């Protein structure tokens, strides 16, 4: 069999009837374009979030109050509740927890540790009222988050010990509040307490899910007073090395369970999360989203496939005499079957290639709107080519079988 002649003929037929072919494969084009753009967006989101999480540092751990998975909080007063200004007045994470974890003898693998009391405030500026987050932290917090001083000085241990009302500004926040003026020495009223600005951080890379440049930082001891909160919203820990993270995670759990006098670890009122945990959670969420959206796009492929079947059936009846003739010159049943399958697949594949190009352009065009780069991988293209071939095969089978079963004599007589 010299099928390249057939393929050549079919390709010519597709290109001679450009408009008809394009209309026929439009459903496939749209379906494949949606799959390409959605999957590449999904990949792009994944990578951009992963980058942010890895920017947190692979050796970083976070303790959050409450149980994240399968949470069964028996005492409703211990349920994590988000109230006024983002403070969790009933958080389970105490100063004692931070102190016992900070014990270098018991936890030699902890390099830095800081609790965080998350508050926020509103101040009046030249450009109207402005709300911004105020975090009560220890000096270790800045080491964990790679924040370094640009002007003035940072918080130190003595500020924490004294509960000093001093404040360091993120770079962007300093500009927003003070413009070109020097903020050092200025006072800011945070929820009724006067704080002195003692420093401004350098611009820091946005890491995690918060922007460190638009936050203000005060000693956690002062935050306890100002925000009337005894407990931490988070505890941030940096391990001495990435390799100790899994075992350190267990150590932290043990210490906190003991502190909280919980015997059954499944009833823990806190969760220790590593960057790896967040990564896999984000991955599974984006995977679910991507496959859901791809499923929707697949419906368009289905509709496109029905269009292909329709046009192939029309083609079979238009070309009944041709089929009879081919049989007369020696085509076997299987040759006719293959011919119509090849034609259907060439059609859908053409649609698939156009769809890949279109999806690529959509992904590219959306880049500027989204602020992250969609990623078209080889696998995505393989998926698109595979999907369009499958559609051609599945929806081409019925017309092809119909064509191949035609009796040559009836076909030649057909008017």
């Amino acid at each position: 069999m010299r099928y390249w002649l057939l393929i050549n003929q079919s390709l010519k037929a597709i290109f001679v009837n450009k408009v008809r072919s394009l209309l026929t494969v439009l459903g496939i084009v749209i379906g494949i374009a949606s799959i390409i753009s959605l999957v590449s967006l999904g990949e792009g989101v994944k990578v951009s979030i992963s980058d942010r999480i890895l920017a947190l540092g692979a050796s970083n751990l976070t303790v959050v109050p409450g149980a994240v998975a399968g949470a069964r909080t028996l005492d409703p007063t211990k349920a994590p509740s988000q109230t006024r200004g983002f403070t969790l007045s009933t958080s389970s994470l105490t100063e004692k927890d931070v102190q016992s974890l900070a014990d270098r003898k018991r936890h030699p693998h902890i390099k830095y540790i800081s609790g965080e009391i998350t508050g926020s405030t509103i101040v009046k500026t030249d450009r109207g009222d402005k709300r911004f987050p105020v975090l009560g932290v220890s000096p270790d917090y800045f080491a964990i988050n790679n924040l370094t001083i640009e002007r003035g000085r940072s918080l130190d241990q003595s500020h924490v010990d004294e509960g000093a009302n001093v404040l360091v500004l993120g770079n962007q926040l300093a500009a927003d509040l003070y413009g070109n003026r020097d903020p050092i020495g200025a006072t800011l009223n945070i929820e009724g307490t006067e704080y002195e600005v003692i420093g401004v951080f350098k611009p820091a890379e946005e890491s995690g899910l918060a922007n460190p440049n638009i936050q203000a930082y005060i000693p956690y001891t002062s935050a306890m007073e100002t925000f009337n909160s005894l407990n931490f919203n988070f505890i941030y820990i940096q391990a001495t090395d990435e390799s100790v993270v899994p075992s350190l995670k267990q150590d932290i759990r043990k210490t906190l369970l003991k502190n909280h006098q919980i015997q059954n670890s499944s009833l823990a009122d806190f969760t220790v999360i590593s960057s790896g945990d967040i990564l896999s959670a984000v991955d599974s969420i984006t995977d679910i989203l991507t496959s859901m959206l791809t499923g929707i796009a697949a419906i368009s492929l289905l509709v496109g496939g029905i269009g292909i079947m329709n046009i192939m059936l029309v083609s079979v009846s238009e070309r009944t005499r041709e089929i009879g003739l081919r049989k007369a010159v020696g085509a076997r049943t299987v040759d006719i079957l293959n011919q119509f399958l090849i034609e259907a697949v060439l059609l859908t594949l053409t649609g698939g290639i156009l769809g890949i190009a279109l999806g690529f352009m959509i992904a590219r065009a959306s880049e500027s709107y989204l602020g992250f780069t969609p990623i078209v991988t080889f696998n995505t293209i393989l998926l698109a080519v595979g999907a369009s071939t499958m559609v051609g095969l599945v929806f081409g089978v019925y017309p092809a079988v119909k064509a191949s079963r035609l009796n040559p004599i009836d076909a030649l007589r057909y008017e």
Partner: protein
Amino acid sequence: MEHIIEMKGISKVYKTGDEDTVALQDVDLTVTRGEFLAIMGPSGSGKSTLMHIIGLLDRPTAGQYLLEGRDVSRLNDSSLARLRNQKIGFVFQQFNLLPRTTVLGNVLLPTIYGRLKNSRSRAFEVIEEVGLSDRVNHTSNQLSGGQMQRVAIARALIMNPDIILADEPTGNLDSKRSLEIIDLFKKINSRGATVIIITHEEHIARNANRTIRLLDGKIVANAERIA
């Protein structure tokens, strides 16, 4: 002389609804290699049915058919397709060319389904033989009826078949073109191919070595032409 076709007691019955149509009834026919045979008879007398059975496009309901001495009744469909490809060339009244396809593409069609060495040069050869060398790249809709039938003949010739079967090949042509086509068949026959044509016209049949006449599915006359 070798009998290229030997048929004994061939019958063909079509079942249409509850009525049976007897298209051929107990036909005996022997054709010698290299013969030029004409089949005549009124419309509906079974000429095309006989030709389809000879050309392995259809199977008889009863009877024995030996093609080059070989019983073809037991062959499966793909073997029959192979024999059609290698041994038989069909020419139809309605030309049956592929639309929007060049003369060359049409002539090459049988080579998709069977092995042929140097198929392109062979295609040019048969196109030359039917006198269309200057039309190789014309598409079929750019040709006149006579030219289309020449393309169909070139297509029938390309695989070097032993038998050329033509079902009213001049039925759609004026008398001048008809004579040209008949001359072509005579030329093909003179090179050794067995040619069988169905025709309504006596002056066409007169070119054959022998004429058989069908009536209601039976051979009613079988006459050699005395040269």
